């Protein structure tokens, strides 16, 4: 359908549109008009992605004189593919109606592992070794050498791509990763380098968060993006954590040992190249002296990981004198490693600010702050000079330099925490030195500054006013949309008591109480006997899950559950979990029914959908608070209180509730779907906790469902499941219009959006 939002003609590839999608587009359009940033919360299953894509591409078409670029960031490759598939549908529709002038170039960009077509390179098992295998075949000096020595293996795809040079272009269209690989194979061009080259020409780019947020990568991939870009962060409820992780480093004993080995190897390399080709080291030295290039770009074509600190934080300074010479630099690194080793030997937990850490480093190891700041750059330059290709082996020393640069650059918003052992396993010595970032706004600030509009959107962004504070920006629009539904297809309940009326909670003093464990078990036993197909349970942590399952096993509760449904458990092992999920789905498909035990904040809670019969009920056992004794969390809380005036309790509750909402939100993925959610903890009935749940859950949480005991919940569940099993009327009746046609929209445009029927 084609309709107008104010002065923009929107091309929407479906015949009907949900009212909330329309509203979403209106708000988005205003944001684009205002050239500002926005926060939009809309429940999953309402077609957020298509609304977003269709508005932004239509906006672009309506302003041909100032074309905007869309940069769409997703969390996983799977989501990337889904987005591109939707864009394809949209693009076909627009081309059908507008002809070739609507053609755009849209590409997905991912790591070499996902894009490479060279079978020999792909044989490597993880991402880093694929990268290294690729470099071994494509680095400029390797290629230069191969002209003399034909035995050196090169990548044909890359050679062809290089030969085509300027002519290596993608024709307009929408390319998923699969399409890119097919195109590359067909033409014999390397899809990875082609895609990276096309980033500057493409109208729509879909890639991962890291390409924008992680300064190491962003500097290379995203530096050519124009200001008139719209950056979208989808599923962005965890964006603050992503930002923080991008700037946090942890160093263990293993890292130091690896780094030492790396240094030895570098040393050998230096000696060798001194013997064979002294001129090269000298040339690099001269370049650094002249300060011409911050990075010793030896031969143009090789782009390396850039500085982990943010571009604007490194002023145009030349590399300090004491590390210009390769040998000196290696000495400095040795001293740094030694110092870190001594610090790791501590018996106590230590917490320090970067400033005091740097000053003690200066006094004890004689390395000053400015030197630290340039460690990472200097290492990269050295590795280029030494022509080292197997970069995956040099990860430990890179980590250490990364650490050094961050410590040297930032004085605020970070802290250094040294723990001699894991808090939960005090008898196993496992010293770890962590540089943790507390300020999410540091990593995202350049994104806000550089681009015209940044859209942060997700199914759960509540409370929506906290995000601008955490990320320190001012949105022009921040709104939470409700889901219009033809029937009440979600049924959230707060269960506070067991059938014996004793309260249940995972509060620290109550969680191991046998009464609570029994009541939790009984709840599940009752529920599996009345809920068909799939049931998902989320626990607050792995250790709690292990404990409670062991107790259930002893008391025979697990056996009772197994009579009704098969039981599958998430573990920390990815392969095992994938297998469990696979079998869980099969058990749901063939009617046997299954229960999946999982952990909030785990992989499953973040990325796996339990839609339709794969999840008819999700039980959230307890409130998934973070481990509050963790030193890092405490430091972050302190920082948040001092800098942003966010109370500790508020932040913890917010974080726990968004995880809970994320977990229960897994069950519903479309409007035709239905599912129940049980929050099994008495603390959920308190207003301060409950009110932080997203609006679309709250609006279905009736007062009568706030303080339930197990038997009442059973009764409600029974009725709900019966009601939902009745035939589903798609269009909606009784004045609750949930599918708008073209005429409805035209009518609405005349009367104003406010009259929209909900």
């Amino acid at each position, binding site marked *: 359908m084609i309709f107008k939002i104010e002065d923009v003609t929107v091309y929407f590839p479906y015949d009907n549109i949900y009212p909330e999608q329309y509203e979403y587009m209106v708000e988005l359009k205003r944001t684009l008009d205002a050239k500002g940033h926005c926060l939009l919360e809309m429940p999953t299953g309402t077609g957020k992605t298509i609304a977003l894509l269709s508005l932004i591409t239509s906006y672009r078409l309506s302003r041909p004189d100032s074309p905007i670029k869309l940069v769409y960031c997703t969390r996983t490759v799977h989501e990337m593919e889904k987005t591109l598939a939707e864009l394809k549908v949209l693009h076909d529709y627009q081309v059908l109606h507008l002809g070739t002038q609507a053609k755009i170039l849209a590409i997905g960009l991912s790591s070499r592992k996902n894009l490479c077509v060279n079978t020999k390179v792909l044989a490597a098992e993880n991402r880093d070794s694929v990268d290294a295998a690729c470099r071994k075949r494509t680095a400029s000096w390797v290629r230069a050498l191969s002209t003399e020595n034909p035995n050196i293996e090169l990548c044909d795809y890359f050679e062809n791509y290089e030969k085509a040079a300027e002519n290596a272009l993608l024709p307009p269209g929408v390319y998923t990763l699969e399409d890119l690989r097919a195109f590359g194979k067909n033409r014999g061009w390397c899809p990875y380098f082609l895609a990276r080259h096309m980033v500057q020409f493409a109208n729509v780019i879909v890639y991962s968060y890291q390409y924008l947020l992680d300064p190491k990568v962003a500097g290379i991939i995203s530096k050519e993006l124009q200001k008139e870009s719209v950056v979208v962060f989808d599923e962005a409820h965890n964006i603050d954590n992503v930002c923080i992780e991008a700037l946090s480093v942890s160093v263990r004993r293993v890292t130091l040992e690896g780094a030492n080995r790396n240094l030895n190897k570098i040393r050998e390399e230096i000696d060798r190249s001194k013997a064979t080709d002294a001129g090269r080291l000298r040339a690099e030295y001269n370049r650094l002296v002249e300060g011409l290039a911050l990075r010793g770009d030896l031969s143009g074509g090789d782009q390396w990981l850039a500085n982990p600190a943010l571009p604007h934080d490194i002023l145009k300074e030349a590399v300090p004198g004491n590390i210009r010479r390769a040998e000196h630099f290696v000495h400095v690194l040795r001293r740094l490693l030694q110092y870190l080793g001594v610090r790791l030997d501590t018996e106590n937990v230590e917490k320090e600010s970067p400033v005091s850490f740097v000053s003690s480093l200066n006094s004890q190891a004689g390395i000053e702050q400015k030197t630290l700041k340039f460690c990472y750059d200097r290492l990269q330059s050295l590795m280029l000079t030494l022509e080292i290709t197997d970069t995956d082996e040099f990860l430990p020393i890179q980590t250490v330099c990364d650490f050094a640069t961050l410590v040297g650059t930032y004085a605020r918003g970070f802290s250094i925490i040294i723990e001699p052992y894991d808090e939960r396993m005090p008898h196993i010595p496992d010293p770890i030195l962590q540089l943790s970032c507390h300020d999410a706004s540091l990593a995202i600030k350049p994104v806000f500054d550089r681009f015209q509009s940044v859209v942060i959107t997700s199914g759960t962004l509540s409370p929506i006013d906290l995000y601008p504070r955490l990320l320190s920006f001012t949105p022009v629009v921040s709104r939470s949309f409700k889901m219009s539904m033809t029937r009440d297809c979600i049924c959230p309940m707060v269960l506070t008591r067991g059938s014996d009326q004793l309260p249940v909670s995972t509060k620290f003093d109550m969680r191991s109480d046998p009464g609570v464990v029994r009541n939790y078990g009984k709840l599940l036993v009752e529920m599996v*006997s*009345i*809920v*068909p*197909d799939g049931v998902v349970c989320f626990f607050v942590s792995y250790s709690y899950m292990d404990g409670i399952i062991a107790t259930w096993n002893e008391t025979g509760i697990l056996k009772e559950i197994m009579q*009704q*449904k098969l039981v599958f458990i998430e573990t920390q092992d990815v392969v095992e979990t994938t297998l469990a999920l696979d079998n869980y789905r099969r058990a*749901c*498909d*063939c*009617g*046997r*029914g299954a229960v999946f035990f999982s952990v909030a904040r785990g992989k499953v809670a973040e990325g796996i959908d339990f839609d*339709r*019969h794969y999840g*008819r009920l999700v039980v959230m056992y307890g409130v998934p608070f973070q481990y509050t004794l963790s030193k890092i969390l405490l430091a972050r809380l302190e920082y948040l209180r001092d800098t942003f005036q966010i109370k500790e309790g508020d932040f913890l509750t917010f974080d726990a509730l968004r995880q809970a909402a994320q977990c229960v939100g897994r069950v519903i993925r479309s409007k035709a779907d239905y599912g129940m959610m049980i929050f099994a903890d008495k603390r959920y009935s308190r207003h301060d906790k409950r009110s932080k749940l997203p609006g679309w859950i709250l609006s279905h949480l009736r*007062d*009568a*469902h706030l303080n*339930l005991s197990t038997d*009442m919940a059973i*009764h*409600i569940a*029974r009725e709900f*499941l*019966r*009601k*939902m*099993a*009745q*035939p589903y009327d798609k269009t909606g009746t*009784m004045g609750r219009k949930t599918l708008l046609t073209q005429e409805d929209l035209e009518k609405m445009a005349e009367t104003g959006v406010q009259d929209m029927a909900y």
Partner: protein
Amino acid sequence: MSNQRKRLTGEREDEDDEDAEGIGEWERAYVDDRSWEELQEDESGLLRPIDNSAIYHAQYRRRLRMLSAAAAGTRIQKGLIRYLYIVIDFSRAAAEMDFRPSRIAVMAKHIEAFIREFFDQNPLSQIGLVSIKNGVAHTLTDLGGSPETHIKALMGKLEALGDSSLQNALELVNEHLSQVPSYGHREVLILYSALCTCDPGDIMETIQKCKKSKLRCSVIGLSAEMFICKHLCQETGGLYSVAVDEVHLKDLLLEHAPPPPAIAEFAIANLIKMGFPQRAAEGSMAICSCHKEVKIGAGYMCPRCKARVCDLPTECTICGLTLVSSPHLARSYHHLFPIAPFDEVPAFSSLNDSRRTLGKSCFGCQQSLIGTGNKPGPCVTCRKCKHYFCLDCDIYIHESLHNCPGCESIHRPKSVSLMEE
């Protein structure tokens, strides 16, 4: 009418607001009934029961339209000779008490009613019963045309035990039905109260097997929607529904009584040899071939081998001839030529038309069509004969009589030509 509807939605909102959880079981009956809300004050201040007939009628008409919608465009073929297996799940879940007194009792009661209704509507068809208990499917009765034997077998075995297995039941039924003659329509109706199925093998293969042998599987669930049941029904072209309460369960069951549309590729015309036995003379004594008992009078004689049988329709145990009576055939006939649904007469046009041309009474029962307050009551009209009928007669004509009195009285001399249409 619109006024009433508004009231009705108003009621529903009230019910939503009502805190239905905080009440005890003993109060619930009153809340569910809400008998006080079925009263209405009329103009003179007297309490009267709300006239719900209009709403019931609307519901009925929707059902009717749904049924005729498929038939409207093309003349649809219907399978009049059905071989239906009823599978009843007597697993652990059937002992639950959410239907009073228990699911198993309620199921048995309504299956009994269904069997009677089924033979009433499909006199040429046969039923067999299968039960699932302890994960194994048992045959309760083989295919047969006598309601009494089925009901007796069903009532004898009311206990619920163990797991349930959909696959075992389907395999058993499939085996039984593979022997029925090709002109018959194979159907299974499963009453499933469990929420899982413990199968010995891959149920997907069994479903494909059922699909291949043209077995139409329908499931009525008693507790919630199960994916595998839905999948089974979709694959084999059956209906899947879940009962909300006892009344709904009954409705859902009875929906399966009229013959379903025939599967297209299966519906080949076929000639079937049938015998129309005569009722044996009163007082003559004979040994019946079905029970091997000496009986005086009562019973029918097979026209081919002269054997005595007790009930019709059946298959002669001696010569294997299908024995029916002509009324049975006639009763099946209306499924092929249903009377078209009547048109609803809009409220104000009836004010002019109906009064002027037809007076004020229903053609069927001669009751006045004028409602309270001298307003014309709701009524319907037949498309062919243009006669007006009241709502009660409408339902009676479509559901029981299967003839329109108006058309019949006009076209009586030409009824042969009507049949040819």
